[in-house]
């Protein structure tokens, strides 16, 4: 039984065409309203999707860096920035005061308290950032954050808009 499953999988992997639409999972906005993840991609432009949490130090550094740059990037390329918090119900209520208190004005925030969207996007650890086109195809993705990584993302965005 198991063998059969593996053979099928192996076969599938060698044959598949790598194109996709975005997984549709229920997430919440900062007002606790339910939203389907695929509705994040209704716009015309590319989307930066960044998974983070209020207790994750490198995530906060990363969003600080994006928040500083995103206005400029959006003007040049139209890219949008969406941050998905995976804070569970221990810290989910802290997300709105945290982002406002931090002064992050240029980012759209959503909540994924049981990590359903994180799992659907195959994220292992946070921070994890993806760049997607408007159909939800993954153009680029990046795990963890070190200062200066935003320049690489900017290069990729520029390249995609050429």
């Amino acid at each position: 039984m198991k063998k059969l499953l593996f053979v099928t999988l192996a076969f599938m992997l060698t044959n598949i065409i790598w194109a996709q639409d975005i997984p549709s999972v229920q997430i919440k906005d900062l007002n606790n309203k339910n939203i389907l993840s695929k509705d994040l991609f209704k716009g015309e432009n590319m989307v930066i999707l960044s998974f983070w949490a209020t207790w994750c130090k490198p995530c906060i550094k990363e969003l600080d860096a994006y928040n500083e740059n995103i206005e400029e990037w959006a003007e040049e390329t139209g890219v949008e920035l969406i941050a998905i918090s995976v804070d569970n119900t221990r810290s989910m209520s802290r997300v709105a005061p945290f982002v406002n208190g931090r002064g992050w004005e240029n980012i759209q925030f959503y909540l994924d308290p049981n990590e359903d969207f994180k799992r659907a996007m195959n994220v292992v650890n946070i921070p994890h950032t993806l760049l997607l086109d408007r159909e939800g195809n993954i153009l680029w993705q990046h795990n963890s954050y070190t200062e200066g990584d935003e320049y690489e993302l900017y290069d990729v965005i520029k390249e995609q808009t050429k």
Partner: protein
Amino acid sequence: MATIKNLLGLGFVILFSCSISKAQNNEGQVHGNVQIDAQVYKTDSIIGAEVPPSRMGFNSYANLNYTKGNFTAGLRYEGYMNAMLGYDEEYNDVGIPIRYISYRSDELEITVGSFYDQFGNGLIFRSYEDKSLGYDNAMDGIKIKFNPYKGVYLKGFTGKQRKYFDLGPGIIRGIDGEFLINDIFESMSALKSQVILGGSFVSKYQKDENPVYNLPENVGAFSSRFTFINGGFNLNGEYAYKYPDPHPDVIDQYNYNTKFGDVILVNATYSRKGLGVFLSVKRVDNMSYRSDRNATLNNLNINFIPSITKNHTYALAAMYPYVTQPNGELGLQGEVIYNFKKETFLGGKYGTNLTVNFSQVNSLKTTPTANYEKYESEYLAIGDELYYRDLNVKVHKKINNKWKVDLNYLNLKFNNNILKLILDESGSSTFGMLDANILVADVSYKIKSRQTLRLELQGLFTEQDKGDWASGLLEYTLAPKWFLAFSDQYNYGNENDKVHYFNIAAGYKKKANRIQIGYGRQREGVVCIGGVCRNVPASSGFNISITSSF
């Protein structure tokens, strides 16, 4: 059971096979990830690190998800050969514990096989996983989500819970409804105030095989919740009630009690640009709820009671973590985050961010009774015993384009008699109330646009347990690919053993692939996330970690 598994497996094969033939014409997608954590252990008598018989710990995971139109199917491989120290030995196996097929349209979602979900805050049902804790109470069964009308969200499921590579003996059933009032009534859609109401019911069934007691085989729990929003103000709360559920995992004199359980959780927040305020209150009484009444540790929990304290992540600040006491506690937490604007006296050129957080948890006021309920608790009274108190202040400041500074101060009171985090060989607490002051300075300096040096200095000062600690970390990063870090934790206040825990780690990442290697000593400690903890024994040796998403 075996037949069902085979059938489900067969279903997968058919689905995958069909998908393959179609995928070549139409579009379909395969995504997944791989994670490997391994350590080669070395004997180190100074810190009491021992080598397990297999000499090596090796945890490996791989997820594979296939999406085609409205269908998704996926599976997870897990292999522990053997499980790393600190993970339960019952994980020592290889297999495919997670596999599912799911259909999703805008209104309807049906999942068969493994699934995760939660109702409201999780007070009566939460199924989730956290690999760093070895925690996974995935459901195996069927789940339906239905959105019949704008603003109405219904969920229902029935299933059994994962326990290592097996399933627990109990069956869990649950329904949940969430109602966005402003969406349902069109006349309210333009109102500034918004209201969301929700309610759920969960029931578990487990056969009573107890030779002494006549125990209830079905135990139900219900909860109701609300959210009220007006501009930057948000008030939300949930109350949950559990019917009598006699079980042994309670403090000795109250075990097998027939008292009901309940929990109330209320959060209020206010925020506007540059200011965030958060206040939270929680009362928990007799709320341990498992699908096997004899289960212990982190096994087969049906519900999740979030801790009402801040989750600290700096190494020394996280040394004495608080974890929810489901058998009874009363707690509150408050936090203010304020951003001093640019070009002001305290803001400087780039602004200054200040966070002040306070939390305290006490016992309930309980009185033993002579009947089978065994005790009663006063609702509004605060118990005399302090479990935990935490006052912490954090300042974040960008000084200029090169320098950034984070400063943290914490004062902790930690009642080890109750929380039983540090125990001696006979299982008794080695100290009572711990009082600690902790200082952390985290400074980063940008050498060039893609090169950063980060220094982290920490001190923990206490008279109790192992006394004072100092810790330092120096990290060099070369974006976007490389990092190198040296760290040491020094237990200089320990009169018996002034031990250094020295570590070196280096990493390379490219896109969503990351590899990290390290060598050194790890102190004995506890890893906690949410309300769940895992004890990690002292170890020494070489470790490697690989993650990849595709």
